[in-house]
């Protein structure tokens, strides 16, 4: 069973359908109690960092999230769900985030007017470190991205995938123990994205 945290940060339909298509049962919840009992957790989200943090606070989800990560439950952050795991984000004039991963979230900059921000589309992920979620996926495979801010991961040991866009070569995938996080959308990344979700579904959270 995959438990998807619903903290009102965007549409969860595609994440749910992607897991169901690989034969997983899915529960969508905003209940701290259900999150604390979960076997595997997916923490998705689109939108702005501040709104995401505000919702996590008002739904009393911050402590349950810290607890399941500390307890070794396999945990997958996607897009904003990755970004809020860092210490802070430049978005909305500076937003304090969860600080579970070290580093901050910065805005893309470019002087080239044809380098559009947000980055929208398929970009390559260079696998900088072996990880169970990449099993059976070729290095430099392309995944679907939509974002204006990127994670600047300060602990290089946590970077497992890297992508280049605008002024940045950023951590498009990060891993720390039972925690894994991706900036791209595996649920929108076709067969290769489904493979990553399947790997997560089969992962025991150990590296």
């Amino acid at each position, binding site marked *: 069973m995959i438990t998807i945290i619903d903290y009102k940060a965007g*549409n969860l339909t595609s994440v749910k359908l992607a897991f169901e298509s690989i034969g997983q049962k899915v529960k969508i919840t905003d209940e701290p109690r259900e999150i604390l009992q979960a076997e595997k957790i997916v923490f998705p989200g689109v939108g702005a960092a501040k709104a995401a943090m505000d919702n996590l606070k008002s739904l009393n989800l911050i402590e349950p999230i810290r607890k399941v990560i500390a307890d070794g439950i396999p945990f997958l952050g996607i897009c904003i769900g990755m970004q809020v795991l860092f210490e802070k984000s430049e978005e909305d004039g500076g937003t304090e985030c969860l600080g579970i991963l070290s580093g901050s979230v910065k805005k893309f900059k470019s002087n080239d007017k044809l380098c559009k*921000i947000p980055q929208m589309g398929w970009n*390559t992920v260079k696998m900088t470190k072996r990880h169970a979620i990449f099993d059976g996926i070729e290095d430099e495979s392309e995944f*679907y991205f939509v974002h204006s801010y990127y994670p600047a991961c300060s602990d290089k040991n946590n970077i497992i995938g890297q992508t280049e866009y605008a002024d940045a070569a950023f951590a498009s995938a990060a891993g720390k123990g039972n925690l894994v996080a991706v900036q791209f959308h595996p649920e*929108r990344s076709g067969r290769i994205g489904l493979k990553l979700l399947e790997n997560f579904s089969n992962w025991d959270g150990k590296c």
Partner: protein
Amino acid sequence: MLTKRIIPCLDVMGRKVTKGVKFQNNIELGDPVEMAVAYSDGGCDELVFYDITASAQERPIDIDIVREVAKAVHIPFAVGGGIKNIEDMRQVLWAGAEKVSVNSLAVSNPDIIAKGAKLFGSQCIVLGMDPVKVEKSGKFPSGYEITIQGFRTRTGLDALEWAKRAEGLGAGEIVVNSVDADGTQAGFEINLTRLIAENVGIPVVASGGGGTYQHLIDVFTEGKADAAIIASMIHTGRFTIRQIKDELIAAGIPIRQKW
């Protein structure tokens, strides 16, 4: 490197994909869900569905088709045509579409772009525009006028001014569908595409006129498009997406290679 997207366009009417030239003489091509799966498996980067209606007479969007597509393909897809209000947007997005595209509706009610962007995020809101070439003038400094309702009605809006305004309202992407080139397979409207692409900060998708490899190469290099919509060239079976992508890669265009 961010790759250029190839986006098949499926015009759906009464559960069948159709294709016409300049919105006329439509022929039936197949089932929308089956075609979506075939193109996704074939390596397209995204899909767009226009006018998903239950029948030609009844205009509401056939939300069941959107749900079935979302179950069957796991790449982004957009739905356009037939969106009348915020509730339609919500239904389409909650059924599993990544984006909704507004065209005529945005001309009569530009605020729908701002409302949609605020509620669902800019990345979900696509402005579709159908410009036609006109004499450059004070009223039309870009030399293109926006038409609506399947090219039938002129609006008096300048294409570039409208694109910039939509960006300001919160549109996340603009599809530029040339009235003059649509369905001709004689090449994209390069000047129009480049004009919009160089003057807005959001991605621009070229549409209308793609018929050969060279047309796609031109629209990505000279036209500066971030993505291109194709229809006739693949619907007829003349080219596969694999063939198209191999040719673009050989020409040095950044293209998604693994799927």
